[in-house]
Structures are given as C-alpha cells and as structure tokens.
C-alpha cells in the first residue's frame, strides 16, 4: 500500500517529459510554466511522502513496490523509501523545482534565462525535457531496491547531464561533457561487474534481502573484490581523490542549473551507493577496504582544500571544495560506525543544500560580471551588490562548517566517528585521519575566507564599477526614457547563447524599448553586464537604453539580487539554518536506518 506514491514520483516527471515530445506545439507557449508545474507536482508528491512517512519505522523500507520486471533474469521492479533515502528524495525534488523556478520566474530578458522562447540558440523545450528526464533518473536511483534497477537509474542520469553540459554549457563544454560521460561510464562498468559478481554469488538482486543477509553466502575474498569494484564506480561519481578530475571541468562549463544539480544531487548518488549497497551488503569487504577508503578520503580533504586555495575561477573553486567535502562524507563511511555514517549522510544533505546555493550564487555572479575569474571580479562586491555579497558570505560560512549552520554537524560527526571507528579497524590510523581531516577543516575555512576577502571586500576595483559608477547604478533603476525608440541590440542574446559571452553580442533578437518598458530597466542592466565582461564595443549595444549615462561610466550597471533568484535561494537558506540549528530533524531519521544497515558489523 502507498506504493503508488513511489511510482508517481517517477511517472510524473517522466510523463511530463514524454508530453513534451508528443505535443510540442501545444506546450511551446507555456513552456516556462510547464516545467515549473511538473517539477512542482513532483515536489508536492515528495512533500506528501515526507508527511506520510512512518517515522517510527524509519529503518524499514516503506511505500514499497515489488513487481516482476524481466522474469527471465529474475529482475524485479522494486522501489521503497527508508530513513536514508527519504531526505535525498526530498532534496532532489526540491532542487529540481528550484532550478525550474530560477529558470522560469525571471522576466525572460535577464541573462541566463535559458527558457526565453524567442532565443534561437537556447532550445528551451529540449532543456525542460532534459531536466525532467534527469529528475526521473535521480529520484529513481534513491528509490531503487534492486541492484540492476539501481544501476539503470544510475546510468540514466548520465545522458541528460551530458547534454546539459554539452549544449547549454560554457566555452569548453564539448570536452568537459565528453570527459564527464566517458569517465563516469567507465566507473559504472566496473561497478556493474561488481554488482554482477554479487548476483552470481548470492543469486539475488534484492537490496533488502542482501542487506539483511549481511554478506552471507560470499567469501571474504569475493566480498573484497566486489567492494572494490562497486566502490570504484561509486567513487568516480562521488568523486573521490584521485578520480575527481572530471568534476572541475564539468562544473566550470555546466550552466548554473547543471552545476546545482550536479553538485546537489548527482554526487550524492555515489555516496548513497556506499550507504545502500557497498557497506551493508559487503561488510567484510568494507572492513578490509575501509582504511584505504579513509586514507583517500582525507587526502581528498586536504588536496581539495589546497587546490581551492590556488584557484582563480570561482566555479572551479567551488567544484574543488566539493572534493574536500565529499572527503568528509567518505571518511564518515570509512569509520563504519553509526556515528560516522550518520555524519556522512548529514554532510551529504548539507553539501547538497550549501553547494547548490553556492553554485546558484556563482552563476549569478558570472551572469553579472561576465566572468567568474576572481582577479577580474576585482573586489568590493559588498559595495556594488550588497545583498548578493551578503548571501555569498552566508553560503561560504555555511560551507566552511560553521556550527549553527548545516555544514557543521556532518563534518563533526564524521570526525567523531573517526575518533572511535568500529573495532575491526586500526584505531591509530583513524586517529591520524581525524587529525588530518581537522587540519583540512582549517584549510577549508582559509580558502573560503580568502575568496570572500578577495571578492566581497575591498573597494570595487574594476574599471567602470568603481565609485564613479554609483550614479550609473542609480540611472539603471529609473524608468527608461521613452524618447529614444531605437532597438536595444542584443541585450538578451549575448549571455543566453552559450558561447556568445564576449563576441557575439550582436546576434541576439531585437527588443524595443517599449518592451523594456516602464519596468525597472532590466534590459539595460543586463546589457551592461555583457558590456563590462567584454570591455569594448558592447557598451554601444547598451547605448539607447541608457542614453542618459555620461560617457566613460557606461558599463557598470550591476543589478543586485532579483526576485526570481531570491525565490530559488531562500528555501535553501532556510533549510541550511533549520538543519544547522535543529540537526535532530535529520539525525533522528537516519539513525535507525543506519543502525539496521550496519547490522553486519556490530
């Protein structure tokens, strides 16, 4: 009973995507509302899931569906939700919805508005389709309770993400997308071999049954081989050092929503696999591999932090910070204790919220400044864009593990787990890991604070954004003068066409001033963002819209946080605060499930 809810979580986005293929013309005019509605319906289902979940039995799978799928191979369509997967499903539905909100509720003329129907390059229908298919894959991964079904969903995700990067990404998108898909596919193949080995040894693919068996029927050697094979596949996705190099490229090139979903959900699929498959099904293999896993995890923490210290590109820096944060998650798993795994799962959710927010912010900065290169950003964001700067400060502080915000509890519990790992593991080694991890936390604080110091503090240093530009900021916010009726060139085309950031400003559609209209001069602001990014000619493109600007300061109108951005960010901010101040919400959910999953180790 209630299994329909789990199925509905998959079918709603899937049907939504199919409908786009069946009736493209009918849906084209309402495309923005459509994506929002479908993902909103999925979110509503997830909320119902959260509301009707039986918290007293969080350790057992609920909302289960178990039907034969391919009887010849004994494959079953087996879905279910327990305390480990429930938060991840809710997070997925929420982040997808927020991405659609971010895309849909803008006024269509802002940069980065990929859903503007008129822009030829943007392919809005394909984008909605891709995101919905992505959502099916992501939610399915967290629902699946059959090894092969899990693998299928795990793989489905790759393809929409590949297109998301390859079509809507930045300049180096092709190479990044190919690297992403080849790397993760290669990992998946290894994982598939591991899963098949488990199948061959035990004769079942049922995750629940395998988890209850705690490795019975598999010799120690088999368990170790299977754990290593499955672990490599998951570690590529997580990503674990040294299998991480696809991540910075993918993040740097992906569009904002791609980065948010990649960091917020896709990385979690790897770590979820450890909690769901690798550790409970293969306990002896886990014990044998845990020291290695822990070692690679702490190397990742320190290595990621050091790499962040020397980055110039904001998005790349956040990508490397994910390597460090995922290191804490893996360290928590490596301890094989309830505390450590709890910490890992908490850090998982926290990272999804915080890094999702950080990528939203990085995207917003890139849209405004035309670059995410920190030296080019200059400084003084708190002066030019006070609210954006303040939210960026908040997100960074959350990410560096400030107690009272979500980032702290996961890392703290991971370290506490490492202080007292499960008895089968060498304690001295894990104490060393704990100390290195702790120093990594200091380095994490160092790179975030240095970044904040560089970007948000100081006087605005870039040409045109200096103090002289305050007047311009003011001009931008006035209604545009009605008299110069000429077209505002390319205000939209530039940033929307993925590779058109600097040069191809002229190719956009024409927007007459009446459309820019009596609003708040958004078009003009957007145009001048492009202008600052390029430096030279496009200032003329801004021209007519802000005709009253005195020459010389024409390229500076940066808009602070906008309504639709706030719609996408505020839920994340609220949840970061909520989980930070009241960690019990998550911990009481995961603890019973974790204790069941770790049953084979105690």
């Amino acid at each position: 009973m209630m299994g329909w809810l789990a199925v509905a979580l998959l079918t709603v986005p899937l049907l939504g995507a199919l409908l786009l293929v069946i009736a493209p013309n009918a849906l084209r005019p309402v495309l923005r509302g459509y994506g929002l509605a479908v993902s909103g319906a999925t979110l509503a289902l997830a909320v119902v899931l959260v509301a009707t979940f039986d918290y007293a039995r969080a350790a057992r799978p609920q909302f289960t569906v178990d039907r034969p799928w391919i009887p010849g191979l004994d494959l079953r369509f087996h879905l279910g939700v327990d305390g480990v997967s429930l938060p991840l499903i809710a997070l997925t539905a929420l982040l997808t919805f927020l991405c659609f909100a971010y895309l849909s509720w803008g006024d269509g003329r802002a940069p980065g508005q990929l859903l503007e129907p008129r822009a030829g390059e943007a392919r809005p229908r394909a984008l909605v389709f891709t995101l919905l298919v992505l959502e099916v894959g992501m939610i399915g991964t967290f629902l699946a309770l059959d090894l092969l079904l899990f693998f299928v969903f795990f793989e489905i995700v790759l393809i929409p993400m590949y297109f998301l990067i390859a079509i809507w990404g930045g300049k180096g998108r092709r190479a990044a997308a190919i690297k992403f898909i080849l790397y993760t596919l290669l990992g998946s193949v290894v994982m598939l071999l591991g899963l098949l080995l488990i199948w061959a040894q035990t004769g079942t693919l049922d995750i629940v049954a395998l988890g209850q068996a705690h490795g019975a029927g598999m010799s120690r050697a088999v368990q170790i081989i299977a754990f290593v094979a499955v672990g490599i596949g998951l570690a590529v996705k997580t990503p674990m050092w040294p299998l991480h190099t696809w991540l910075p490229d993918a993040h740097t090139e992906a569009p904002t929503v791609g980065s948010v979903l990649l960091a917020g959900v896709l990385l979690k699929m790897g770590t979820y696999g450890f909690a769901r498959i690798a550790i409970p099904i293969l306990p002896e293999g886990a014990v044998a591999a845990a020291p290695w896993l822990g070692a690679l995890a702490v190397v990742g923490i320190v290595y990621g932090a050091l790499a962040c210290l020397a980055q110039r590109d904001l998005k790349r820096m956040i990508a490397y910070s994910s390597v460090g944060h995922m290191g804490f998650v893996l360290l928590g798993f490596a301890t094989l204790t309830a505390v450590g795994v709890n910490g890992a799962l908490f850090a998982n959710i926290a990272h999804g919220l915080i890094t999702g927010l950080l990528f939203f912010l990085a995207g917003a900065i890139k849209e405004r400044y035309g670059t995410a290169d920190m030296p080019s950003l200059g400084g003084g964001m708190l002066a030019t864009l006070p609210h954006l700067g303040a939210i960026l400060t908040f997100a960074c502080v959350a990410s560096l593990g400030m107690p009272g915000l979500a980032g702290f509890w996961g890392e703290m519990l991971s370290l506490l787990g490492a202080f007292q790992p499960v008895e089968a593991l060498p304690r001295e080694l894990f104490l060393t890991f704990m100390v290195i991890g702790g120093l990594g936390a200091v380095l994490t604080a160092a790179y975030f604070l240095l970044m904040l110091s560089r970007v948000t503090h100081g006087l605005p240093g870039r040409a045109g954004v200096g103090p002289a530009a305050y007047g311009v900021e003011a001009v931008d916010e006035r209604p545009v003068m009605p008299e110069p009726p000429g077209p505002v060139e390319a205000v939209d085309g530039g940033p929307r066409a993925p590779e058109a950031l600097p040069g191809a400003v002229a190719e956009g559609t024409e927007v007459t001033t009446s459309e820019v209209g009596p609003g708040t001069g958004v078009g003009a602001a957007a145009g001048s963002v492009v202008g600052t990014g390029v430096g030279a000619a496009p200032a003329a493109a801004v021209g007519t819209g802000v005709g009253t600007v005195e020459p010389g300061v024409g390229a500076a109108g940066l808009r602070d946080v906008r309504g639709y951005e706030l719609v996408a960010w505020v839920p994340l901010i609220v949840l970061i605060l909520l989980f930070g101040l009241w960690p019990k919400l998550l911990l009481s959910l995961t603890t019973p499930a974790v204790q069941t999953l770790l049953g084979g180790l105690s």
Partner: protein
Amino acid sequence: MTNFPLLAVLLPFVAAFAGLLLSRRPYLLLGRRSRPGVAGAKADAPARSGDTSAAGGDVFGTGGDASWTGGEADERRRRAHARAAWIAVVPTAVSVVLALWLAWAPGFAYIVGAAPSEPVGSTYGSIITGGIPISLTLQADDLSAILGVLVTLVALAVQVYSVGYLHDDPRYPSYSAFVSLFTSAMLLVVYSGDLLVLYVGWEIMGLCSYLLIGHWWEDRGNSRAAVKAFLVTRLGDVGFLFGIFVLGVAAGSFRIADVLAKVPEMSMGTLVAATMLLLAGVAGKSAQVPLHTWLPDAMAGPTPISALIHAATMVAAGIFIVARLFPAFVVARPTMDLLAVMAALGMLGAALAALAQDDLKRVLAYSTISQLAYMAGGLAAGSDRAAIFHLLTHGAFKALLFLCAGVVIHYVGTNLMSRMGGLRRQLPVTFVAMTVGFAALMGIPPASGFFSKDALLLAMDRALAGGVLTDAAALLLYGCALATVAVTGAYAARAWLRTFFGPARAVALPEPEPGTAHVVDVREAPRTMLLPVVLLAVPALLLGFVGGVHLDLGVAAVSVVLALLGAGVIYAFWRGDPVTDPARVLGPLRVPCERAFYVDDLYAAVFARPVLALAGLVVRTDDTVVDGAVRGSGRAARGLSGVLRLAQNGNVQLYVSGVLAGVLLIAVGAVVFA
C-alpha cells in the same frame, strides 16, 4: 526561573535576525514615491553600498529606490538606525535582568566563596547521533551566573555606546545585529551544560569576531585582520573539538556534569591528552602564546567591538573553559606546567610589546594578552577563583579603557598616540574614567585590579611552596608575574601621559578615509557614549570590594611598589622630554618589542607561505599528474586505435591475405592438436 538561561540566550539571537531583516523595512513603504532626479540618487548611493544586511527589505523595492533626495536618504537612514538600535538594546537589557536574577538567587556565590548551589536550568531534549547523544542543556551554576552578568552588562554598555559611536555609519544595522548574535553565542557558551553545545557557541563567537573585525571591509588591511583572527582561532578550535571528543568518549557523555563526575576514573593519559587539546582552543580564543598574534590585528574593528569581544568577553572564554573544567585540568599536571610556561612567556612578552606600541588600541590589545596570561597563570597556580575574579575586574576595567580610547579616537580622529596629547582639558570626563581604568590595570589601590591581581600573585606565591606545578614552572611563573607588574605600570603610565598630558599634537585630517572612525567632533562625545563610560567606571573602581577584602599585605606591598617603580621610570623619562616617546627607555629592545618579537614574520615564513606554495604545487600536480593520467589514457586509447587502423586500409589484397593466413593457422592448429 529554569527557563531564564534559555531566554537569555534566545532573546539576543532573535534580535540579531530581527535586526538584519527588519531594520530596513521602512524602505519598502516609503520607496514607492518615484521621482526622477539623479542628484539625490548619487548622494544616496554610497549609503546603499554599505548595506550588508542579508535579504533586506529593499530587494523588491528597487523601482523607486534610486530616486531619493539627499534629505530623504538621511531621514531614511536615521530611521533605520533608530529601529536597529531599539532592536539591539532592548533584548540585551532584558538579558541583563535575567542574568542578574540568575546570579542574585545564589547570592553571587562564586566570588563570595560560598558553598556551591544547585544549577538552575533544564534540558530541552537530546540529539541522537548513533553514538553518544548531545544533550541540549542550558543551566546557570555559580560560575556561569557570574559570567552571564559580566557578558550581558558589557554587551549592553557596548550596544548603547555604539549608537553614538557609529551614528553615521551606513552599516550600523548589520553591526548591531552581529553584536546581538555575539551576545547570544557567548551566553550559550556560558550557560551550556553540554560540551558540544558549548562548542557551537564557541565557534559562532569566532564568526561574529570575524564579521565585526571586518566591519570596515573597504580597507584590505581590515579584511586581512579578520581572516587572520578567524583562521588562528579556528586552528586552536580544531584541537578544542578533539579535546571534547576525548573527554566525551572517555566519560560516555558530553554533559559537563557527567564528564566532571567521571574525571576520577579517567586514566592520566586520557586527561593529559584531553586537557592539552583543550588548551589549544584556549590559547586560540584567549590569545595566548603561541596563538596570540591575531589579537593586536583584531584592533582593526570598531573600538566598541574591541571592548566587548576582544577585551572583556570572548577572549576571556578560554579562561572560563579552564575554570569550568578545572577538576580535569588540575589533575593533569603536565598540562598545568605547560599552561604556566605559556602564561609566563605571554604576560611578560605582551607587556613589553605594549610598552613600544604607538597605536593606543594596540597598547590595550597587548595589555589584554598580558592580563589574560595573568589569569592563565592563576589557573596554572591552582586558583580558579582568583583567575575568575581577575577576569571579572579585567572585563570591567578593560572594557572601560577601550570605550574611553574610543572617545579619544572619536575626538582626535586617529589611533596614534604620537598625534594625541594634552587631552585632559578637552575630555575631562574621559580623562577621569580612563585614569580609573589605568589605575585598575596597574593594580593601584583601591581600584578593582589591585585586589584581583593581589589574589593572583598570592596564588602564584603559594604555588612556589608546592602544589600542582613543578618548581621550575612555578618559579618562572612567579618571576615573570612580578616583572610584568613593573612593565604594566610602565606602559600604563606611558599611555596615560602620552594621551592626556604634554603638548597637544592633534593634526586635523583632511578627509575621513573609509575604514576609519569619522573625524574631529567639537564636543566631548554624545551622551550615549559617555553614559556607558561613566557607568563602567563604577565597577572598575569598586568591584574589588565585592565579597569582602582578602589581602596579603606582603604581596600587595611588593606589587604596588613594583608598579609604581615602572611608572616612575617612565615618568622620569617623560619629564625629561614630553614630546619624545618614553618608550626609548627600552633602548635597542624597542624595535623588537614594537614588532612583538617578530612572531608574525616567523609564522608567515613557516606556515602561510609554505601552505600557499603547496597549494600552487597541488594545482600543478592536479593538472599534469592526476588529470594528465586521465588525458594520457585517452591519448593512449587513440594511439592504439591508430595502430589498429593501419590494418583497416581498404586494400582488398591485404584483407584476403589476412583471411587466408587465418585459415592456414586454424588448419595447422586443427592438424597439430587434433
């Protein structure tokens, strides 16, 4: 009454959020009257630029936002400030009442020396972690109750003072909200009954310290100081967290009461490890050697912040923790010896550094390090009561000194004593108040500092005769403490003379730079600034008499004579030439003292630069080695396929030859193996 600790913590916390989100609300309502006019917008722009409050109300109101005339902008800002001030001051005042009540009930038992009474408070559930649960306990025992009074009172004084001090700072609303958040976090540390909950407050204090040091972030120097303060304390805090782990796991609980109850059963190794690790956090937060370097730089923040966070409360938290867990520390002898050595080096070194500084606030900062080292020395000598007594008097007189320094800086427009002089006529109230503060700092009777310093010296004297410390450590501690008394007298006298006496050297600055307090004011200071100063002068003078006077006449006489000796030498040098800095008494030591013995340069060379170099190395490695392997595997695959492709060249002859050769091979194989 059991909920008073919770209320005292929550009120400033809520005030912080309210201050950030609500104080600018009126913008929304007024902002709709759109009027074209660039001039007003220009006048307004710098003010808006300073708005750091997150998610403020004017996010949506951008339509008419830019069309304010100058007068309207001022009016708008004034209202926002007034609102923020009320939001900040009222909850803090209520917290003062709650804290006083909590301390009044057991009759200030801790300083009076009465028998300990039952803690007041309750447990609000616990957080399961899968291992040891975290208990959400807030309670006030005798020690917490006393500290709570200090924290809330100084916070209230600083909030009121800041209304005047920052009255034309565009970022006052966010500033006062951060001060409220800090107050809440510090009260959480004080009232928490669980070590991990305490750690939460401990870290949030660090965050507030970072945000407030960087209040004038336009200046890169301030930004650097803020980052440095956060990172140095965070380094210590990692040790602190691990110390909590050791204690908590050994006791099977993170509740402080449970931990202290289990101390007798713990092994010596566990206790020494735990206390040493905790000491790292104490050294970071309380700016003790070797993690003291952040505090002088932290003076980049507004002066009221220096008074509250970097003199009276946050930096005292380390001392408080040691006193809180004193039963664990006092058993761990090696830790106590280390604490004694750290304290001895810190108190004398910082006092000497204070003697050579030209910046008035840096003098006070080094003086804070030195005085905190006194407290640490008292703890090491085995007297937690003496240390807490000095913590309280120091909190009062050092906050007073900083607030007075703020008035002086507000008046002169510079921090440098070489630009001050002869101010006793222009600032009579401040002069009297600051004289009280300096007297307390030097330990001149009847000011409060005299009694508390006497209690500390007495404890160190007794430690010589035998106690927790080894002889060498006790001797070093007592010797350094006596020498520091003299140096303290010297630097206090120097600062007093250079500021208030001699010829005036004030130079009017042309324009206030961003990042400095605003310049020359004609009057002494607004009433909101003078009132807290006058009120703080009372405890700074009289707090020593609380709980009865316990004096050891011998020690007291020695310390007063030493302090006067130090002051006398400085006075003699100053009389000789009132214009030149009497710090020349240090001779060749002056430059090393001014640079604080080059510790900063050492750390930069040993830690900061290697880490950055390592970061560069990691990036290069990541590109060439780790990713190089990935790209290399791709290239290798393509290379291999290139070799294979040679066979697929479309030459039919080659294909047929290949087929024939294959058939031949199979045939031979079949014949041979059949």
